[in-house]
């Protein structure tokens, strides 16, 4: 099991603190002419109490004490006219599980080199599993395991549960260098490596139809590495700028698959070998892949205020990892009569991007722009017939009419956009903006091969005096396209012999319109206003309204409406007071429609029966509120600050059904987070201050999908028992800041 926690300060932390202080002390001598802001060290001690799984979601911290070091050190500044080298070192959260360090050396107009490291910890979710070998690519059950057809008969499930923490840690390391030469040329190269390790959950399914699945949720081991390299050569002439670049990205996964022992006994519809104890399942994990791209860009000032930009980029995504076998079960593997058509996919997507832009800002009141964009992802992966084995639980059925005989669909995408925009200035205080954009999309193996969308926008902004400004913007668009062929992917990915066995020759309801491809009318309004009644006060407000009408969708998403209102205020007095606040509310409403139908003899009858219709109305509301106040007292020797933030999200789904169906209400889901930050800085001297901080965070959430849903709740799925977070945590920070 792979967990990441930082409890009491470790020897490593203490060593880092000592080294940092020694380093900081030596720099005092070396950099006594640099501005104060970039030469400071914070050394602190933090104590965190309470159950804090979510609190530490990006810091990796759990209860207890932690030493913290932040520092920023430099010599000179970036605008050093004498051309002297400038260096900078910045470190944050050293001592915690998520340190970030970056260092750079710059000589203005000559060179710059830099390096960086940071660590991110995400997830941190608690769960339980009976599986053994957690962290590895092969998971087994404990001795004495009692299999059954459902969790009801698994007498050893609860006694066998062991705790685990699902958490991911990402380490990022990067270096780079830039070189300026011959007055107008620049060469830059940078390399970065991200390594992601840890655990996350993934479903391990046995079974070959929607009627006989049995699942155990697995801890998936993560050990992934992504390497990025970018190099570019640029020329910056007074009128013409050129840039050529190379981008490489290589993804490497230490695990190609995950094998687990099936905890369920063989059930009807499965081959006998699939059940416990010999039954095994195998998942594929993200395959190794790479992407490379060449780019060329040019910018030309045709005349002052008028510029032409042309950017071209060509790339390739490739993936050729060896396939896993159809099944990991040796008994079922012996049944294979139609072998894999190839050993690996040899997948390839060619990407092409062209962006052309002409923009003009002449001296008169008019300005205008023209944009053209071509974005193609041409999937050249080979198309073959694969005869899969459903969920490692059946012998291969290689007949021509087998539903297991599937042909892959290497989907391609090509988008073209053409836009025109113009603006007219009324004096120096108001302007009117307008634009039109046409978007055309071509797809392969899609229910809709061509889409087209026309978008109009109109905006008005105005300043009234020095104290008030406001803006209003409207965007309207209409999307339509070629004939919607809902069963096209179904027909293209199965054999005609199999399609002949399916009444109606469709998979999804013919009336369904997938929302990203459906006809849609969109209308958006946005309003923003700001008012400064005095030099001390600033007030702001904004509101947004977006309505999507899927006017021809009988089933699927039919309508959505999203609204938001945000208010802001800030105050800054000359006597040392400052305050700020914000409040916002968002409403999100989505409506969808569907019809429930089953297979077999009643399939077509039910698929046409309006009494089996159902709909879901989603209503989400998010409230956020923040208040803060700061004050300097005792002649500026003490600074006090207090911040409060609250956010509450409420979500409901109301399901309504026709007379042939039944339904019951679903409870509301809620997530509520409240934070209180108190901080006081005691300025012990001109250069040294002591900070005492207190933070309290309260998080409550309720989600019917996870609340009280344990490993043995469902009959056919052994879950990890991840519950909704609910905690209160206090953190105290005491730190000493010294500026050199």
């Amino acid at each position, binding site marked *: 099991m792979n967990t990441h926690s930082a409890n009491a300060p470790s020897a490593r932390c203490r060593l880092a603190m000592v080294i940092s202080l020694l380093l900081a002390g030596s720099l005092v001598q070396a950099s006594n002419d640099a501005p104060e802001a970039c030469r400071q060290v914070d050394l602190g001690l933090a104590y965190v109490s309470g159950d804090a799984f979510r609190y530490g979601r990006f810091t990796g911290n759990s209860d207890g004490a932690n030493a913290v070091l932040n520092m920023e050190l430099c010599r000179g500044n970036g605008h050093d006219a004498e051309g002297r080298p400038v260096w900078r070192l910045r470190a944050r959260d050293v001592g915690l599980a998520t340190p970030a360090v970056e260092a750079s050396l710059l000589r203005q107009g000559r060179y710059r080199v830099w390096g960086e490291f940071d660590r991110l910890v995400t997830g941190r979710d608690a769960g339980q599993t009976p599986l053994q070998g957690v962290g590895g690519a092969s998971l087994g059950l404990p001795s004495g395991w009692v299999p059954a057809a459902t969790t009801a008969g698994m007498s050893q499930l609860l006694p066998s549960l062991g705790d685990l923490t699902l958490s991911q840690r990402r380490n990022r390391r990067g270096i780079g260098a830039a070189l300026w030469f011959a007055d107008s040329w620049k060469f830059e190269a940078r390399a970065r490596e991200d390594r992601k390790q840890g655990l996350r959950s993934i479903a391990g399914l046995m079974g070959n139809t929607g009627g006989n699945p049995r699942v155990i949720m697995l801890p998936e081991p993560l050990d992934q590495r992504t390497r990025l390299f970018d190099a570019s050569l640029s020329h910056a002439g007074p009128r013409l*700028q050129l840039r050529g670049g190379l981008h490489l990205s290589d993804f490497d996964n230490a695990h190609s698959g995950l094998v687990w022992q099936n905890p369920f006994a063989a059930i009807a519809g499965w081959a006998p070998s699939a059940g416990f104890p010999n039954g095994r399942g*195998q998942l594929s994990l993200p395959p190794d892949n790479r992407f490379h791209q060449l780019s060329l860009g040019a910018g030309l000032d045709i005349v002052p205020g008028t510029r032409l930009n042309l950017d071209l980029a060509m790339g390739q*995504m490739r993936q050729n990892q060896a396939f896993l076998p159809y099944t990991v079960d040796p008994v079922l593997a012996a049944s294979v009569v139609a072998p894999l058509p190839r050993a690996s996919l040899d997948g390839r997507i060619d990407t092409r991007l062209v962006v052309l832009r002409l923009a003009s800002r002449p001296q008169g009141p008019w300005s205008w722009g023209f944009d053209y964009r071509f974005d193609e992802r041409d999937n050249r992966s080979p198309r073959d017939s694969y005869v899969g084995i459903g969920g490692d639980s059946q012998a291969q059925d290689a007949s021509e009419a087998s539903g297991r005989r599937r042909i892959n669909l*290497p989907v391609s995408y090509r988008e073209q956009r053409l836009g025109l925009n113009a603006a007219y200035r009324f004096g120096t205080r108001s302007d009117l903006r307008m634009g039109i954009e046409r978007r055309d999309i071509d797809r392969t193996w899609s229910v809709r091969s061509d889409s087209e969308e026309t978008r109009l926008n109109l905006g008005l902004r105005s300043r009234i005096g020095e104290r008030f400004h406001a803006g209003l913007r409207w965007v309207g668009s209409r999307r339509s396209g070629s004939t919607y062929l809902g069963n096209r992917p179904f027909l293209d990915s199965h054999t005609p012999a199999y399609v002949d066995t399916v009444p109606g020759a469709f998979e999804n309801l013919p009336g369904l319109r997938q929302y990203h491809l459906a006809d849609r009318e969109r209308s958006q309004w946005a309003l923003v206003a700001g008012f400064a009644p005095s030099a001390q006060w600033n007030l702001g407000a904004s509101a947004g309204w977006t309505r999507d009408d899927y006017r021809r969708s009988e089933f699927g998403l039919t309508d959505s409406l999203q609204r938001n209102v*945000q208010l802001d205020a800030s105050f800054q007095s000359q006597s040392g007071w400052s305050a700020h606040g914000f409040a916002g509310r968002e409403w999100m409403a989505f409506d969808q429609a569907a019809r429930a139908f089953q297979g077999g003899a009643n399939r077509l009858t039910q698929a046409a029966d309006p009494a089996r219709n159902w709909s879901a109305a989603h209503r989400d509301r998010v409230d956020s509120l923040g208040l803060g106040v700061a004050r300097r007292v005792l002649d500026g020797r003490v600074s006090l600050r207090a911040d409060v933030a609250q956010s509450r999200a409420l979500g409901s789904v109301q399901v309504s059904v026709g007379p042939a169906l039944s339904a019951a209400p679903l409870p509301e889901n809620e997530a509520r987070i409240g934070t209180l930050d108190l901080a006081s800085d005691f300025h012990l001297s001109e250069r040294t201050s002591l900070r005492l901080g207190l933070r309290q965070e309260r998080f409550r959430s309720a989600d019917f999908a996870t609340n009280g*849903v344990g490993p043995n709740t469902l009959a056919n799925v052994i879950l990890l028992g991840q519950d909704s977070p609910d905690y209160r945590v206090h953190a105290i920070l005491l730190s000493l800041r010294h500026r050199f």
Partner: protein
Amino acid sequence: MRRPARGERRAAPDRGFGRQAATEPGQQNQACIDCHRIDAGMHWLGSAHESAGLLCSDCHQSHAASDPALDKANEPALCGTCHQQQRAEMLRPSAHPLHDGRMGCSDCHAAHGGLGSSLLTGGNVNETCYTCHAELRGPFLWEHAPAREDCMHCHRPHGSVHPAMLTQRTPFLCQQCHLAQFHPSTALSGTGLAGPNLPSGSQSLLGKDCQNCHAQAHGSNHPSGASTTR
């Protein structure tokens, strides 16, 4: 430039910077672009921020030893002063770690203009996402077509009230595109909640709902994974 003698009046600067300055906004920005032609200036004219009338000085402090705009940890607060909707989304229960200071807006957006729409650093949404999520890049043997086309068909990258930054709650989100016979088209409601006697409850509604079985929502490379269960 000659340094003024003691007591001599300092000459007025050629250009003033900021909203209160008399210098015309385009000229203010041009002073910066003259030195930053190849990076910030390359795509500036005609970009969304330039078209919105932004000044370089709205975000940058050119005379400060440390320009706060160049510190990623400051970006969410800085950008949030105008992009209030995105700032509010960052506070939602499921979000990228922007509000936590572990990620910057510039990780995805090129504030001075770039190749992608919405000022994205990559050529399009997916290219941008794959920079950090290369495990989802594929190509896969069994593609999930909407995921290949645009990650934002299902995800809200600034933050969502639903897990995994999904635009809507599963299983209902999945049912907006998948209405096949039996369980995909079933009306899931309170009848699928767990009762007092275990085991009970719908495997399509509780736990990870659809992903209790269909684990490979972004695509599968397993030869038996056509249903994204492998």
